[in-house]
């Protein structure tokens, strides 16, 4: 009677040992979405540690007033490279890596739509990242100026003009990111085509897992939001190399035009970055609450709404630029509106947990951390959306606190939830849950200690991007507290890295479905074979494995 079969590949083929060069070739030349996904994620984690070390140096410098740990030029390069790395070389590859690894598995496909484009996307991203870092060596330029770029991660004109940024450091910023951006668009295109064209039989769009929905909208945002950045960067290159006047105020050009173009990219970009966390939470919370996601249609609708509205809020980064009161009011309004679907998601996640049986294992702990911290971040976001309040908070440490709450308190916590959840699938081994808990609690304590005080510093008038400050401005105490939190965060990350290494070596065997999951990736072995499924699955609801495990109470009896 049961027509839905779930091929569980239990044959353990004995693999012969590959030599080092064979192994290297198999990874370098791979077009398999799982390998490429892992390569993206590992690269992102490496860049996360590098950029984290940069942040640690900055916090060391700022721990005390009038400090001399690093000079202004070094500090300015540090915050530029820290921001650029975190956004483009950590956040974006996580988007690509997670969607590349999981989307084909979740929709019952064998690979992405364009496997070679997939490989191209990864390698060009890596090349872009290396090009950016090459600036440390190659950024000398004609007059020996510069090394790494020091113009801030949003590189405002005309600071980036040849006149004010001599040498080649800014050019490395432009080219590295431009090239990496091409990789992002390629990957996003691949995800869209895969999702639209390669779902297994029975998987209508409405039956797709939430993770896939979120990453689909994310990919849409990427292909729409990255081109404005690419265009602006091409214009900047034309200015710097060909004497163009796009942002040359001497020739009548507009410095504000760069800001418009950059933020038309930049605001959707931050939603692009956070969506993987939304996607992960929408998978992990139901499994660890033992209940389906509350209000699936609304969750999908909310993600689509966020995608659309986020394209219309960009000038809330420009409230101080002197736009008309009409423009300021419009962008304040749209920025507040985007908070509504976001809030709805938080409510729905909580409602999923309500009435459930919560297993507070490490993935779920990180989800709980996300919920509370992202709530705070969203509320400080509303504060920033209210333009008159923003006139005080803009470009101060309040904003730094806000976006680290969204990105670390939100995104990174969500990513850790996902890593602890899917590590068993990808490697066949469980991560140690006890170490995971230590990791979680240390990270929470360290994170809050570092970033809560930043809100106070902003209120006390401390601007962003300053390498030092005078004593008795009222900033000493909170800066010291903030810097101390770094030590605890570093300990947490070190624990995590140790957990990964140790679990890879001798972790508990995971089996196909360690968490009692409901989506298709748990219907194959851990790690999955290269072809993913022996027979392509056929589904009847959004929780195919629930249907299989509960034949007397399947979802397709209740879902529309």
């Amino acid at each position, binding site marked *: 009677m049961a027509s839905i079969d779930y091929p569980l590949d239990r044959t353990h083929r004995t693999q012969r040992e590959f030599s080092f060069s064979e192994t290297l070739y198999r990874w370098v030349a791979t077009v398999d979405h799982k390998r490429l996904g892992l390569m993206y994620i590992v690269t992102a984690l490496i860049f996360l540690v590098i950029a984290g070390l940069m942040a640690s140096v900055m916090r060391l410098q700022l721990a005390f007033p009038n400090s001399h740990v690093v000079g202004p030029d070094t500090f300015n390069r540090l915050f530029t490279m820290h921001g650029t790395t975190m956004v483009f070389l950590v956040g974006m590859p996580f988007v690509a890596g997670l969607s590349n690894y999981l989307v084909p598995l979740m929709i019952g496909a064998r690979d992405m739509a364009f496997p070679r484009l997939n490989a191209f996307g990864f390698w060009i991203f890596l090349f872009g990242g290396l090009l950016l870092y090459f600036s440390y060596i190659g950024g000398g330029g004609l007059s020996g100026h510069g090394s790494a770029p020091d113009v801030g991660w949003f590189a405002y004109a005309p600071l980036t003009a040849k006149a004010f940024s001599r040498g080649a450091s800014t050019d490395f910023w432009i080219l590295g990111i431009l090239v990496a951006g091409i990789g992002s668009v390629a990957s996003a295109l691949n995800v869209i085509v895969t999702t639209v064209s390669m779902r297994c039989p029975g998987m209508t769009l409405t039956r797709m897992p939430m993770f896939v929905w979120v990453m689909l909208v994310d990919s849409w945002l990427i292909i729409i939001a990255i081109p404005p950045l690419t265009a602006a960067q091409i214009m900047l290159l034309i200015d710097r190399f060909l004497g163009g006047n796009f942002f040359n105020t001497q020739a009548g050009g507009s410095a504000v035009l760069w800001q418009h173009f950059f933020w038309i990219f930049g605001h959707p970009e931050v939603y692009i970055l956070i969506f993987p966390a939304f996607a992960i939470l929408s998978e992990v919370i139901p499994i660890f609450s033992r209940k389906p996601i509350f209000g699936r249609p609304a969750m999908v609708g909310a993600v689509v709404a966020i995608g659309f509205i986020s394209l219309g809020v960009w000038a809330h980064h420009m409230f*101080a630029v002197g736009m008309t009161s009409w423009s300021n009011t419009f962008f304040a309004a749209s920025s507040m509106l985007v908070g509504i679907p976001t809030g*709805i998601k938080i409510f729905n996640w909580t409602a999923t947990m309500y*009435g459930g049986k919560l297993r507070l294992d490490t993935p779920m702990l990180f989800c709980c951390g996300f919920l509370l911290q992202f709530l705070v971040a969203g509320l400080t976001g509303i504060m920033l959306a*209210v333009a008159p309040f923003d006139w005080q908070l803009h470009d101060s440490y309040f904003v730094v606190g806000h976006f680290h709450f969204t990105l670390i308190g939100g995104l990174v916590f969500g990513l850790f939830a996902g890593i602890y959840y899917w590590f068993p699938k990808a490697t066949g081994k469980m991560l140690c849950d006890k170490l995971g808990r230590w990791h979680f609690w240390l990270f929470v304590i360290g994170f809050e200690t570092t970033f809560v005080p930043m809100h106070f510093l902003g209120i006390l008038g401390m601007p962003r991007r300053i390498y030092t400050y005078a004593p008795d401005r009222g900033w000493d105490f909170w800066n010291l507290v903030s810097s101390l939190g770094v030590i605890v965060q570093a300990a947490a990350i070190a624990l995590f890295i140790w957990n990964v290494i140790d679990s890879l070596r001798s972790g508990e065997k995971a089996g196909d479905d360690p968490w009692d999951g409901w989506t298709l990736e748990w219907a194959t072995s851990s790690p999955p074979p290269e072809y993913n499924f022996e027979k392509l699955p056929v589904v009847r609801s959004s929780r195919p494995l629930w249907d299989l495990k509960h034949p007397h109470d399947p979802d397709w009896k209740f879902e529309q």
Partner: protein
Amino acid sequence: MALLQALGAPLPEHRIANIFKPLATPAQSEYHIALLVLAITGAIFVVVAGLIVYTIWRFRRKPGDDAKQEPPQVYGSNQIEVAWTVIPILIVFVLIGVSARVIASVENASPPPGMLKVTLIGHQWWWEVRYPDYGIVTANEIHVPSSTATYLELQSADVIHSFWVPQLAGKTDLIPNRTNYAWIDPREPGIYLGNCAEYCGTQHANMLLRVVAQAPDDFKRWTIEQQKPASGNAAFQSLSCVSCHTVKGTPAVGKFGPDLTHLMSRQTLAAGAITNTPENLRQWVKDPQAAKPGSLMPSLQLTDQELGQVVSYLESLQ
């Protein structure tokens, strides 16, 4: 110090620039809307965080629980979902309405006739301050009369800077090839600290700003003092100081660096990087890069004799 002597009554210095202690109208309206937003978001936080924490606590799996038994599979609830969509929309509409009002009141305020006009021009890494009606050019300190409004025209000579004196007003950027406007009306006399609030290069951190609000009579006296030219000095004129600096009344008409005509009337040097003391002044002229590395004033490698002559001349520029 020269400043305090000239002013008579000592001015309170507000070194802690707390945006929740506004001392002028723009900052005040921003403060009031901030309180409203904080109240609303605070309430939302208490409710939602409370619900989240309660949920985690109440429904966590306990040791005796039967792991096999799944809880009731609830898919959603239209009523609840509509409610928690409509309520936030209403809250947002209230916030939009209030924001629109405050935005208009701060931005669209037009200067009443007779209001003091100041032109502020941002440079890498100092502020040029001009009083067109008085013919005064000074740097890094904006003197204004207290309890009346001053209208600021904001421009930039190079990259984007931002005017931010937290206790007086929110930020407005100084953008090249564009004029922005801001206004302040400090309630009481005092010295209000601010920083450049848009990253503008190497020494962005040391581009401080002071608004010196004086009682109207004191302000009048200050303008008269500032309008007086200074007398020249051979050593200063012969060295390359004049290529960058202006001293009104002398052949020194350089425009690249701050106007030095009344240097000694200022509290600090190098846009707030160091206080204006004889020792600091000497150190600054000898080697600007030590105090403000990356600043665009080069060290001129003066001999001790030249240095002494220049510094004593500068000390005479009251």
